[in-house]
């Protein structure tokens, strides 16, 4: 397996691509490109991709980290459900430390709630079938990437008549937050590295509005370092040549029209929520999914009382502006004082790969490097 992966990590080819990128950029201007997806942020960080880019090409981390966008109120609701005696509450590992208004799932677990880490919704379903006297609740998160696997799990639960399995659906969709970002008048972005895994499900077509309406190029991209570099080169080429369109770097996996089977499963199991709150971005209409009427029996939100309280992001938090590239992390009023990686307030500080957490941890090093 590694052999096929390694081909997309070849440092020689990487250097060649970095050279081509350098040739394309106009040294007199800055380029701000947003990588929409948290997976890209991870690759960029893991391989040090921003390190091989020209200094005037800046990558801005977008809203596509599914963990970071969960607002505090949803975490509180999850904890309220997890505190019920009969409940085994399950979630992905990276959800454990995301702060609610008072506690994270990890804190609630330490207090006695039965909260378990799973790697897939099917694991949660398996826990349900092997603990028939308990109620297993799966806290589902993620974009269109993970939504189909939640949907398939619920289909199976229904087919097998598993009655002690419930889901808190926090699935979100990628297009509405992008539109919200693009609608803001102070946006300073030159192009988008489009999500790869999401696009394997929804295709590249839903992003056509970005060049058409907002005049920004978008290239859907794979996750290996060469994919990301090639995607960046494609965006810069569009800018240089005065083109503005949706291109697909990740054509080995992303069909233009998406994956009809996955979309059909999602359409059966989910329906759009009228609105949903995003940490750092506020309420965005039709941006999230809930269980459809046919699956209402599996909806933990219908079975359990939850506080359902909207816990406002602190007023001073400026994650929205950081995401739009309007301000730098250190320009936020609470950065480094009230908002730190240990006690994160906003989405950009929650995940270690968020823009603010990265700057908090590595800002000094990055700066020294720029000076040298």
């Amino acid at each position, binding site marked *: *397996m*590694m052999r096929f*992966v390694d081909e997309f*990590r070849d*440092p020689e080819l*990487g*250097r060649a691509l*970095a050279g081509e990128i350098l040739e394309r950029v106009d040294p007199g201007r*800055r380029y701000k490109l947003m990588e929409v997806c948290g997976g890209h942020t991870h690759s960029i*960080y*893991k*391989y*040090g*991709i*921003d*390190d*091989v880019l020209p200094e*005037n090409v800046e990558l801005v981390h977008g809203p596509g980290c599914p963990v970071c966008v969960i607002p505090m109120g949803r975490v509180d609701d999850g904890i309220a459900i997890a505190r019920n005696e009969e409940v085994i509450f399950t979630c992905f*590992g*990276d959800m*454990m*430390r995301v702060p609610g208004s008072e506690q994270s799932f*990890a*804190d609630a*677990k*330490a*207090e006695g709630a039965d909260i378990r880490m*799973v*790697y897939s919704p099917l*694991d949660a379903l398996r826990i349900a079938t092997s603990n028939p006297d308990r109620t297993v609740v799966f806290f589902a998160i993620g974009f269109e990437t993970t939504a189909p696997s939640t949907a398939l799990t619920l289909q199976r639960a229904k087919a097998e008549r598993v009655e002690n399995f419930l889901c808190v659906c926090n699935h979100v969709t990628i297009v509405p937050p992008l539109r919200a970002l693009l609608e803001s008048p102070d946006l300073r972005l030159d192009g988008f590295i489009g999500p790869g895994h999401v696009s394997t499900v929804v295709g590249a077509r839903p992003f056509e509005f970005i060049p058409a309406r907002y005049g920004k190029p978008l290239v859907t991209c794979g996750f290996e*370092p060469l994919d990301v570099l090639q995607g960046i080169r494609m965006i810069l080429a569009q800018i240089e040549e005065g083109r503005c369109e949706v291109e697909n770097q990740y054509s080995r996996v992303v069909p233009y029209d998406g994956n009809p089977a996955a979309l059909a499963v999602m359409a059966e199991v989910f329906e759009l929520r009228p609105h949903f709150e995003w940490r750092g971005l506020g309420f965005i209409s039709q941006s999230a999914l809930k269980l459809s009427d046919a699956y209402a029996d599996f909806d933990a939100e219908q079975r359990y009382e939850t506080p359902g309280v909207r816990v406002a992001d602190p007023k001073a938090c400026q994650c929205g502006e950081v995401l739009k590239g309007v301000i*730098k992390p*250190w*320009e936020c009023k609470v*950065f*480094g*004082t009230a908002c*730190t*990686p*240990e*006690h994160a307030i906003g989405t950009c500080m929650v995940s*270690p790969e968020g823009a603010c957490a990265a700057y*908090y*941890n*590595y*800002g*000094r*090093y990055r*700066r*020294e490097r*720029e000076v040298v």
Partner: protein
Amino acid sequence: MAAPSDAPSSGREQRILEIIETTRAKRPKLKDERVTMAHGAGGKATQTLIEGLFVPAFDPAGAGLAELGDAGVVTVEGSPIAITTDSFVVSPIRFPGGSIGELAVNGTVNDLAVAGARPTAISVALILEEGLQFDVLRREVEAIAEAAAAAGVEIVSGDTKVVERGHADQLYITTTGVGVVDRRASLSPAAIRAGDQVLVSGPIGEHGTAIMLARDEFQLDADIESDTQPLWAAADALLGAAGDDLRCMRDATRGGVATVLNELARASGVAIVAREGDVPVGPAVAGAAELLGIDPMYVANEGRLVAFVAPEAADTALRALRAVPGSEEGALVGEVRSEPQGMVLVETAFGGTRVMDLLAGDPLPRIC
């Protein structure tokens, strides 16, 4: 920085960076109300627990506990004696390549070995869960005896407690070890300086990956065995080859090589640059790590040490290390620089650089 919007605020940026610096340099405050699994994971939360609670309570005068070595050294009638203790709660108790009994011996003798002390004797304390099968207990007792014989230590003392069913998970073991510090050893994080070379004694991440797969939570099968083994022979070889030029050694257990490098970068006030492409990682571990989205640098080892050697002695040390059975795949993986202090950087195989920080969370519970 060319963008006009950056210019007027650069003074503010500098101030913010300074605030962050000051906060980080302070002894961390323990703010949590309860113990979470993260406090046992070896990352930031563990560090906060040790530095925020244990060190101020046990060593208020700053006698040296804060150095946080794998073993402490006391002088008894003129001889430096190293003492260490370790508890083992691994689940499952048997896993490919070893079991909790073997681990309990190797873990403790290795803490002595990397302190430059030849392990002499250990004590063994057992906490048993009511209902534990004697077959299981007997097997672990035999494993302890065999591992002690292999490591050349005597078991000189012990203790047994039984707790009600459900109050422990089968059995827990605590071992305490003593050893005499070798005359050739002058090991300390303070000895590390710019230019020193970093060695690891073999492929990393095998123990943690073996445990993870043995839990069977991933439905993933791979041929990976724990690397658990005693390390005195490797430490002895390095001391013999490098003597004074061997600056410091650490046992890369919980939190893996990344955590050891971070602790030492902080303790020594240096920067450490690891070359990702030179770090030995077996193909099965690399594949599993890829699938599970984890970095082998953070995965636990139970038979791998990290050594810092003066540049002129690095090649000799590596040759000597590779001649030791079990450390044949040792490698030079990085070097020490003076700046940026306290940080660990990784030169990625792809050609970029990134910071490799302590883990904040809890990647894997109960690996040792």
